[in-house]
């Protein structure tokens, strides 16, 4: 009796509503899961944890998908959810992933060729940045957000964000250049 009833219910107008929601969710996942996963990775520094947070984020997004009115704001909306999920992780248990020495970054490339070696090096430097510098930089470069948008997402004022972006690039540039110099002198 209840299976009949369920079938009937899904066959009526509810069906098209659900289908619509499902389609929206599908396209949201396909369009944004890469950015969200990468952002999660740079937030926590661990691929497995990043995958978990991404799962949590999208699940939560599904539950409150109706509250997303503007599709253009979807990425910022997801990132806001993601940051909350990440914060929740620290409430739950005190595994302080980002304090773990991140020199041993997971890397699927083999650092054999010179280009990959450089990339590996850059990743190491990025992960060594203070989180408060790294986060806006990742948002700017991967997310493509403007200073104002980043300020809104991180609940900071715009000048603070611009200063942190300045320092982040400055530190990275210094680090990479000194590495080059060292490399040259060694060679």
């Amino acid at each position, binding site marked *: 009796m*209840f299976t009949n009833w*369920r079938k009937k219910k899904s066959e009526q107008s509810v069906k098209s509503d659900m289908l619509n929601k499902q389609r929206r*969710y*599908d396209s949201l*996942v*396909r369009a944004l*899961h*890469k950015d969200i*996963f*990468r952002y999660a*990775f*740079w937030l926590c520094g661990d*691929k497995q944890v990043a*995958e978990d947070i*991404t*799962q949590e984020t*999208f*699940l939560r997004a*599904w539950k409150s998908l109706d509250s997303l009115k503007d599709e253009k704001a979807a990425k910022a909306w997801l990132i806001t959810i993601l940051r909350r999920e990440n914060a929740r992780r620290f409430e739950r248990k005190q595994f302080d992933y980002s304090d773990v020495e991140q020199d041993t970054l997971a*890397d*699927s490339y083999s650092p054999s060729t010179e280009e990959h070696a*450089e*990339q590996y090096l*850059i*990743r190491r430097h*990025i992960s060594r940045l203070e989180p408060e510098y790294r986060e806006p*930089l*990742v948002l*700017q*470069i*991967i997310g493509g957000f*403007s*200073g104002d948008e980043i300020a809104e997402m991180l609940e900071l004022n715009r000048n603070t964000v*611009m*200063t942190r*972006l*300045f320092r982040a*690039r*400055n530190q*990275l*540039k210094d680090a*990479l250049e000194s590495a080059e110099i060292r490399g040259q002198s060694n060679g």
Partner: protein
Amino acid sequence: MDELEFRRRAYADPQSRDDDFIQASEETPERQQFLKDLNKLDAKLEQAMSLDVPDDLADKLLLNQQLSNHRQQKKTVSFMMAMAASVAMVLGVGYATWRMAPIELSEHAIAHVLHEPKALSAHGDISFNQINAQLASLKGFNDKGFSSQPGQIFYSTYCDFQGVRSLHLVMQGENGKVTLFIVPTEERMALESQFADNHFKGLGFSKGDAFLLLVGENQQDLQFARQELDQSFI
């Protein structure tokens, strides 16, 4: 824009599209070179940040959502089942209690008279054949009824004695009007032969398979009506 400000802005956002920034960057070739280097750095950073995403991540995300959706649906259904079951149980128990409760006929009869004052002020003249026709639809009254006219009958209607369909008549007593209820007998009914409240007096007796209740203002009227019934009601 001075050099320091330019460099600050360039470091913060080398791809800025602000007019004054673009203008400033075009002022000297050094600045252009500086910006080019920064953009090169950004390109490298972007490459480095864009680490491989597991191929099946999107599918995993969708699967996860479907599963949680399914769970939710199952939960809703079992909740509905529980709700339906408890509603059904409350209805069942309530109905049974209501059906099984003894019916205090005398109290009910007086209450009924009080609640239907229009019955006592009615001035119809209803023949006993009509009343027999009404009686025929009550339970167990197929071959029973009045054999002759029991005086004038002013009012006749069906009424409800706690779920038992009965007949409500108003007939002429010796002086005043008397209300008569004809109720099919049921086991749970409690009949008192005499009852009264401040205003009304009542008589109850059974005849054949029916309980008859008379309610009137004085005893003579009741006795008169009872005699009438003894003669005419079979």
